[in-house]
């Protein structure tokens, strides 16, 4: 058995006799009795063996533009086969996809789609990459892992969109099979992660550092929620950490919040707030800052940090113009980091 089997083991000597299993996938370390599930709703103790109920059964399968993930420095304009299963190990009160992320597998419809067929489907749909997205791909770890193997063997790329709440060992194994990762960095605040997401900050910071080390490409998305993480100091803290730990060339997507799920009492993020956040991130040294989920002039465009020329113009997740030449600015020759081909 490969390293994935090591994710489940008796937590200690006293529990070994009772068949209780501790899931070692994420920092929650759920202790799961036989027949019961972990906090993510997906991982179950079957007679002392940990299994993922949703393996091979995505509840969402769709071909999206890569800009919707969003990845702005990976294969611009490419269609991406995107999939997810039910469940999540975070419980964000603002979740946009709560109808699949905060549900048991029994509560959502799903298709039977084994990993080998994922790669074949991507090829049939002329998708150069597969994205594990919508919910939390690290929760359906074994499925993501096996899909990655097949997709890579088929000569396609693997992309993951994640909150980054996973233990280091399984994360390292999976990262080595990914070509690009987008991490949702909720806030530079332990209390935000605790109160809004039901999680903790430190593992997420580590997940982003590991992604920078092990994955060819990393982008960060930061959802700006009015009153919760929209002060100047909040923006500066996020941008400063990204610049210092992930590098100034790491794209930062500042995303507009819309009232959802258990956070319907807050208003959508004003465009002016996002523009202020972008100015602060730029002042902190980041070179590629995008504004999403809102119409802001040039907010989705990739701009040369050296000469200021617009290189890729986007509108509503579509590429309107791409002037990049072999990953460089055609005007001044500045190399723009990313996976362009």
């Amino acid at each position, binding site marked *: 058995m490969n390293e994935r089997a090591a994710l489940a083991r008796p937590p200690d000597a006293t529990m070994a006799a009772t068949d209780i299993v501790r899931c070692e996938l994420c920092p929650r370390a759920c202790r799961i009795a036989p027949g019961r599930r972990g906090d993510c709703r997906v991982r179950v103790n*079957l007679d002392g063996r940990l299994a993922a109920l949703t393996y091979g059964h*995505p509840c969402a399968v769709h071909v999206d533009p890569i800009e919707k993930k969003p990845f702005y420095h990976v294969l611009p304009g490419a269609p991406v086969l995107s999939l997810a299963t039910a469940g999540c190990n975070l419980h964000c009160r603002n979740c946009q*996809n709560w109808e699949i992320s905060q549900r048991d*597998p029994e509560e959502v*419809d799903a298709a*039977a789609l084994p990993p080998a067929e994922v790669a074949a489907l991507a090829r049939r749909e002329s998708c150069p990459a597969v994205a594990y997205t919508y919910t939390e791909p690290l929760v359906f770890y074994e499925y993501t892992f096996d899909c990655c193997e097949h997709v890579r063997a088929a000569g396609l790329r693997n992309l993951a969109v994640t909150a980054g709440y996973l233990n280091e060992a399984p994360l390292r194994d999976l990262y080595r099979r990914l070509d690009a990762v987008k991490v949702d960095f909720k806030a530079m605040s332990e209390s935000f992660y605790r109160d809004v997401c039901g999680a903790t900050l430190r593992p997420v910071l580590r997940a982003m550092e590991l992604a920078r080390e092990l994955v060819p490409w990393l982008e960060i998305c930061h959802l700006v929620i009015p009153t919760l993480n929209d002060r100047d100091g909040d923006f500066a803290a996020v941008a400063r950490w990204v610049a210092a730990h992930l590098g100034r060339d790491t794209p930062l997507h500042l995303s507009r919040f819309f009232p959802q799920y258990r956070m319907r009492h807050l208003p959508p993020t004003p465009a002016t707030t996002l523009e202020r956040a972008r100015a602060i991130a730029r002042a902190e040294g980041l070179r590629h800052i995008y504004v999403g989920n809102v119409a802001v002039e040039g907010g989705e465009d990739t701009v040369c940090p050296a000469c200021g020329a617009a290189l890729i113009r986007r509108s509503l997740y579509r590429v309107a113009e791409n002037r990049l030449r072999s990953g460089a600015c055609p005007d001044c020759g500045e190399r723009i980091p990313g996976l362009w081909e």
Partner: protein
Amino acid sequence: MGMNRREFVGAASLAALGGALAVGAVRARRARAAPRAAVGAARYPGRVRPLAEIRRRSGVWAG
């Protein structure tokens, strides 16, 4: 202070109703738990639909 008959019957009915609800809750938990114990790694516990149907309905999800 004693109860009159109507009060007693009402209280008894409520107790019975409470008991029935409690039993129902236990049964519901057991019923929900049963497929978990029965499911194998290759057997999905939920509703399996044709891939085309899932794809058609998946355009609404963010990310």
